[in-house]
């Protein structure tokens, strides 16, 4: 079974970014929570009674969890989904966000629930008087920063959000500096599935991370409009990328050794130069500050 | 009264019937005989409105358009050669299907329908099978059930396609007797396709011979059923003896080596 990928739908996040920008402007000038966001038809309303920040947040998005703790709102979190393993010590629950009845969450008495994708649960929670927030997978750094800002506004940690944004920017810039221009113009192949050669183009968020270093994605010409196309072994052989990153180490047990052992792959430049690197699958499905920082550091380390 | 006027049926590229005409008075019985493939079944189905035809079929002077199935069902009842008997349907429900044209299209049967069915079940000695599924009936009993379904339609024309084919001698006779009785009682026109020439002659008032889609002979059984005619149109060697109710046909076996259907045809010289 394939694992979850963060599929960013361009118009959804564009809409989100636009609304968040407007909300952020609005939020900056008032101390109240933004009252409604329209996210692809799902109207998110804040809890009717209080204007105070939520103190019982149920966060069902691993990336949002990272963000919450990064901006200093960790003490307001009373539950996270089972995949929110960073930072360690989060209050894990057995939920995934794919439940079909909001009743499941009632025992936690949340006042805000955060999802990573639109779901009917938003409406159900609204009927129960519980606010929700949908933060869809980011496709760019701008998305990440705006999500940080939004969470800062919602939880009453605007300053913490600004600090987190600066911190993230600094870390990313530092990593790019460390690479010192190495890797500029080099090609890479990021693998998400070993059977069908699913990969990510530079139009995805992970692609944006590579673009920081000026690297070129071999999958771009083969995209045919999809952000996550399936290419083929032959294509990889033909393109002969300089670097290969395996993001299917957890789901599909791939390692540089198994990659090199594939028929014909011994001749690849990346294999010969030992530029095949295995990374945790979550780099392609999460966009929290910790994930981003670790990954860009890893890329910089690889390139040097 | 049933009038068949120049009825022709085209099946694919083949003219299954060509300009067949006949008249059956109320209470009369017209038997249709002929060799295999002559078009007997096709004629039955055309009169029942189940195949498209050119020409006219009139019941009591009224002709029914293709779309008027319900009205036609009130005028013509049809007993097919191989009826489809739903195994688990009870005899009562099956017979009541014949009342469909009488009650409203979507509605249930009325008390009148149930009375009519009761009379027919009684008459055809099916009352004790009334609640049984059709699968539990013998050949003769199920053929009576099919006949009951047709009779309960209370139509002035009864079309039977080989009603005795799957029945033994006794049951075949029983069915023919029943039909004969009922047609006299109720003034029903009977149009009956039949293989058995003796049986045909014994019950029908008149016979029509179909050959290759055409009506080639028409008349009283004694006139139609002759050795010469049978040899000519059926290619069979028989002996015909005059009987009480109708001519008796006895097949005659020829000398060893002599063939069967040689030279069968309208213009055959024999």
């Amino acid at each position, binding site marked *: 079974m394939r694992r979850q990928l963060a599929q960013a739908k361009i118009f959804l996040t564009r809409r989100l970014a636009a609304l968040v920008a407007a909300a952020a402007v609005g939020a900056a000038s008032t101390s109240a929570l933004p009252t409604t966001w329209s996210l692809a038809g799902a109207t998110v309303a804040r809890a009717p009674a209080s204007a105070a920040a939520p103190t019982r947040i149920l966060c069902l998005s691993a990336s949002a969890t990272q963000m919450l703790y990064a901006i200093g709102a960790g003490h307001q979190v009373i539950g996270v989904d089972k995949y929110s393993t960073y930072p360690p010590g989060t209050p894990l629950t057995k939920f995934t966000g794919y439940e079909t009845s909001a009743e499941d969450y009632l*025992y936690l008495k949340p006042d805000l629930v955060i999802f990573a994708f639109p779901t009917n649960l*938003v409406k159900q929670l609204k009927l129960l008087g519980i606010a929700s927030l949908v933060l869809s997978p980011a496709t760019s750094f701008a998305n990440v920063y705006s999500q940080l800002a939004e969470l800062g506004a919602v939880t009453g940690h605007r300053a913490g959000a600004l600090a987190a944004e600066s911190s993230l920017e600094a870390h990313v810039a530092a990593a790019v500096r460390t690479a010192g221009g190495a890797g500029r113009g080099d090609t890479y192949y990021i693998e998400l599935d070993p059977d069908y050669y699913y990969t990510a183009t530079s139009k995805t968020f992970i692609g944006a991370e590579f673009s920081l270093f000026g690297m070129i994605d071999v999958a771009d010409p083969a995209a045919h409009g999809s952000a996550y196309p399936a290419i083929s072994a032959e294509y990889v052989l033909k393109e002969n990328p300089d670097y290969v990153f395996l993001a299917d180490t957890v789901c599909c047990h791939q390692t540089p050794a198994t990659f090199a052992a594939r028929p014909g792959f011994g001749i690849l430049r990346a294999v010969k130069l030992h530029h095949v690197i295995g990374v945790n699958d979550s780099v392609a499905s999460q966009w929290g500050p910790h994930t981003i920082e670790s990954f860009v550091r890893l890329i910089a380390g690889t390139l040097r | 009264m049933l009038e068949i006027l120049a009825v022709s049926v085209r099946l694919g590229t083949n003219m299954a019937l060509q300009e067949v005409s006949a008249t059956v008075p109320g209470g009369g019985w017209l038997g249709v005989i002929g060799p295999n493939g002559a078009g007997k079944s096709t004629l039955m189905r055309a009169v029942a409105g189940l195949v498209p035809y050119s020409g006219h079929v009139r019941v009591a002077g009224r002709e029914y358009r293709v779309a008027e199935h319900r009205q036609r069902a009130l005028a013509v009842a049809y007993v097919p050669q191989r009826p489809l008997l739903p195994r688990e*349907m009870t005899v009562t429900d099956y017979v009541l299907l014949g009342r469909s044209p009488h009650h409203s299209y979507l509605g249930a049967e009325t008390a009148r329908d149930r009375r009519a069915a*009761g009379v027919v079940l009684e008459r055809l000695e099916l009352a004790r099978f009334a609640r049984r599924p059709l699968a539990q009936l013998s050949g003769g009993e199920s053929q009576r059930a099919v006949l009951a379904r047709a009779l309960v339609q209370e139509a002035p024309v009864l079309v039977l396609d080989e009603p005795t084919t799957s029945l033994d001698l006794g049951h075949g006779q029983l069915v023919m007797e029943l039909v004969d009785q009922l047609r006299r*009682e*109720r003034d029903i026109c009977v149009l009956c396709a039949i293989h058995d020439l003796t049986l045909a002659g014994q019950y029908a008032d008149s016979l029509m011979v179909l050959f290759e889609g055409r009506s080639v002979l028409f008349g009283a059984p004694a006139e139609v059923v002759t050795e010469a005619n049978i040899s000519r149109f059926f290619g069979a060697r028989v002996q015909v003896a005059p009987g009480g109710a109708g001519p008796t046909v006895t097949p005659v076996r020829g000398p060893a080596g002599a063939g069967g259907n040689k030279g069968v045809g309208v213009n055959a010289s024999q």
Partner: protein
Amino acid sequence: MTALAGGGRGHQGQLKPRSGPAATASGAGPAGAGAGQAGTAVVRPTRLGPSHVLVAAGFLLSAALVSVLVGPADLPAKGVLEEIAGKLPFVHLRAGLGTTGDVVLWQLRMPRMVLGGLVGAMLAVAGASYQGVFSNALADPYLLGVASGAGLGATLAIVYAPGESVGPVSALPAAAFAGALVAVAATFALARPKSYERSAASLVLAGVAVAAFFTAVQTFIQQEQNSVDLTVVYSWILGGLSTAGWSQVELVLPYVLVAAAALFACRRLLDVLAVGDEEATSVGVRAQRVRLVVVAAATLGTAAAVSVSGLIGFVGIIVPHTIRLLAGPSYRRIIPLSLMYGAGFLILADLLARTVLSPQEVPLGVVTAFLGAPFFLIVLRQARRTG
């Protein structure tokens, strides 16, 4: 030869009972219950009896009640019953649950239970109707391409228009609905019956071709997409009841009501079709027209159901067939009982789906298969023993 006394001469074709001594030699003698005139048998056509209805209604109501009593929010049973009773006319009770409990009951559990009932009823009655018009006890409501059409529509919506809306309706159910209708329309367009006997068979064959084509297109589109979309598509295909208040119920209710009413009205005609197209026509029932109306109604309702619930299998075969084994082959019973038992069955299946692995949900199509198949085998074995 039996003696058949002639009766009076009636009008042409009309039947009159025999008079005379032979009249008493019948199975139902004069002492028999309710024999009309002398010489007529007692005729009891198959009917839907009050006992059938009561048992089915009892089953449905119990299933519905249990379904709203069970859930992770742990609502007190007494409170739930008081709430429900309070909504009945002329009954005045204090509200039994708090505000949250009230919302959980009326906005979360009730809509889901009602949706399950509507979908289950529709799938079962559609399956029964298809079995009637195709004279095949294995026909299911997806026979003519509804499943593949809805699947293609859903895939297109998930992949190309996620989160989009068509007016007040979100794209997924609208696309699934449209896809189902297009597929069945294609089936009808392709099936050109040349004679009465072949019309049913040609429809089924055309349905097979259309289904294969639509499924191939759907698979092709899926292949191009990534695994999140695939997961969503597959979980839709496996079926589930996910509600957001009463909106899904409002969406499907008109279609299901119209379709179920039409099929209910045609139930007696389905019995006539059991003797085949030709004989049905000879008693005044045009099989092709009945088939068209029934298939149209069943398709409309099934498409609506599938658009909100995905492809839930087995209900359309298991429920009508079980009823057939227990209550007989007449559609006068099978159609109305399918509505009630289908609703109850799916409500119970959904209850199981959401409690067995709570808080995870087992896809509803998996549960119906797990529940349906063994139960059906049991009923089949019992029927063989008695029948």
